[in-house]
């Protein structure tokens, strides 16, 4: 916590800002990329959202109150950016977000930056059928292997609630994969 406060001070001081922010990018680019990619699914969109996320983080650092951890604050910004991006994209295309997700999944097999096999595609299709919150929770727990406590801080849901949602999500996915 002490170290984190020091790091935040470095991020805010004009002298050390650039170097500290570069460190922040290096620390967070991979986990945030995976987090965003799991939500928006294709690489180019992820690249856009990831850049917007870091710009937002940079612009809002001075407003960071330290009420939550830097980690969960940054993840929250990334999650919001990714979900907003999907909503805007479906609005521009004039289709529902479910249709957009299915369309993106259909394109996944042809995506050069996806080398998944049948079971991976089936898993993605099963996830797409879940409500938005359950999708997020499943992806963060199963793919990103975040702890329930961390997910709880990011999404603002209780650990008990998260466990229940994850359990339901797993059951639905297993049922889908078994019958398809």
């Amino acid at each position: 916590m002490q170290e984190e406060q020091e790091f935040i001070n470095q991020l805010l001081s004009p002298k050390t800002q650039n170097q500290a922010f570069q460190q922040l990018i290096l620390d967070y680019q991979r986990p945030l990329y995976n987090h965003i990619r799991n939500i928006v699914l294709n690489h180019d969109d992820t690249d856009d959202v990831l850049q917007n996320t870091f710009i937002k983080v940079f612009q809002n650092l001075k407003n960071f109150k330290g009420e939550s951890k830097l980690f969960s604050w940054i993840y929250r910004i990334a999650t919001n950016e990714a979900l907003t991006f999907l909503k805007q994209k479906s609005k521009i295309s004039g289709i529902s977000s479910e249709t957009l997700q299915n369309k993106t999944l259909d394109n996944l097999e042809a995506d050069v930056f996806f080398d998944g096999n049948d079971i991976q595609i089936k898993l993605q299709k099963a996830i797409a059928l879940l409500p938005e919150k359950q999708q997020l929770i499943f992806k963060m727990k199963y793919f990103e292997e975040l702890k329930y406590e961390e997910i709880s801080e990011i999404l603002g849901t209780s650990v008990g609630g998260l466990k229940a949602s994850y359990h339901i999500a797993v059951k639905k996915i297993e049922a889908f994969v078994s019958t398809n």
Partner: protein
Amino acid sequence: MKTFKLENEPKIETGFKTPDHYFENFSVKMMQQLPASEPKVISIFQKRKNLILMVAAVLVLALMIPIFNYSSASSNELDSTELENYITYQSNVNQYDLISGLETEDINNMNTSIAIEDEAIEDLLSGNSNLENLILE
């Protein structure tokens, strides 16, 4: 078909890939995109605008002074009941002060306005049980 159990399966990866050297180049690309954090510049016009607004506010207040004065003057007239109540309950002006303020002319005027008929005096006195005492005195 056998039932699929997620926990019995080896971990299923996402299968997502990134272009070669994506992360190596990302931080450099990102640093160039950051908005430069320059000190905020307040233009002279901005300052002058504030000054103009202040002057305008003072002028508006100055123009409103006659309106305030007028409205307070109109409520200055006291009605006589209020004045009477005030003198009775609030001030320490007593009867003698009032009397000393009266001119002879005023007293004469009062006498004429309180013209009491003899019969009325008689009625009052006969109704008074202390009449005899009064006579004796």
